């Protein structure tokens, strides 16, 4: 898998993308092999079982989540690179939930499933 990713990287010239993620990764690794475990999601879109993400009972449907995740992403994009820190991200997501009269679990639970 990684050899293919490297081939694609080399042909599309996205060395800058690797450089961009480097500072966040290199502080977490004890071996270069661990790059495989920690960084696959930077290069391959993960597949998430739908039943972990959507839940009708909580009114978390594809349409609802699609709309609100776009909203969360839109807000997250307003964070400049320097502010991309745990507290700031949390504050922003919680503010989004409150301003849209959502329950925490409607956004946080599917987010956790998607990001894990």
């Amino acid at each position, binding site marked *: *898998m*990684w*050899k293919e*990713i*490297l081939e694609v*990287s080399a042909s599309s010239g996205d*060395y800058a993308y*690797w*450089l961009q993620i*480097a*500072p966040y*990764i*290199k*502080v977490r*690794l*004890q*071996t*270069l*092999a*661990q*790059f*495989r475990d920690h960084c696959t999601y930077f290069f391959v879109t993960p597949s998430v079982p739908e039943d972990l993400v959507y839940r009708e009972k909580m009114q978390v449907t594809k349409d609802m989540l699609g709309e609100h995740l776009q909203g969360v992403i839109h807000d997250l994009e307003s964070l400049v690179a320097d502010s991309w820190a745990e507290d700031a991200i949390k504050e922003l997501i919680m503010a989004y939930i409150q301003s849209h009269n959502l329950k925490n679990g409607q956004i946080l639970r599917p987010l956790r499933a998607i990001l894990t």
Partner: protein
Amino acid sequence: MKLPEKVITFVDEVKGEVSFNTKEFADFVILKADGVPTYYLANVIDDALQQVNYVIRGEEHLSNTPKQIVIYEALGFMPPKFAHLPLIMNPNGKKMSKRDTNIGCILVYQFKEAGFLPQAILNFIALVGRNPGTNQDVFTLDGLVEAFGMDRVQKANAVYDFQRALRFNGEYIKAMSDEAFVDAVQTYLREYG
């Protein structure tokens, strides 16, 4: 070879002054019936003819040293300086061997496959059984050379601590420039997938 009855004393660079009474040893074979010399004789002659003046070897050879000193003296050679290094033990307290496959990486190819940087392996190995005498334990190659001294080699056996190797490697990875890190990761992934 018949051993003279006497106490042989020499200064080991690690252990300090060491004495053996030859009464503790039986006379020993230096040449087998088929004309092949044993280790004791061959080792002394090789070293003497090559003018080896400093022998650094594992502690298991310490008890060979008085016998070899007798051979050096009998042949009219000047014995070299000796330094006997402590053994490296596995975490179970047994002498480490290449069959110790469950204590982390021990062979060079295993370190390479796991993605260790050469300087981290060097730093780790250089401090097994040796105390640099400061709180610092991450060294450049020049720093290692500067901090090296036989007086810093510990007398007690060393324990192989793979967690320490991981910690060193993490420190070295963290200290890399982003460019060097990306190059190292890409080279690694190209080689090992």
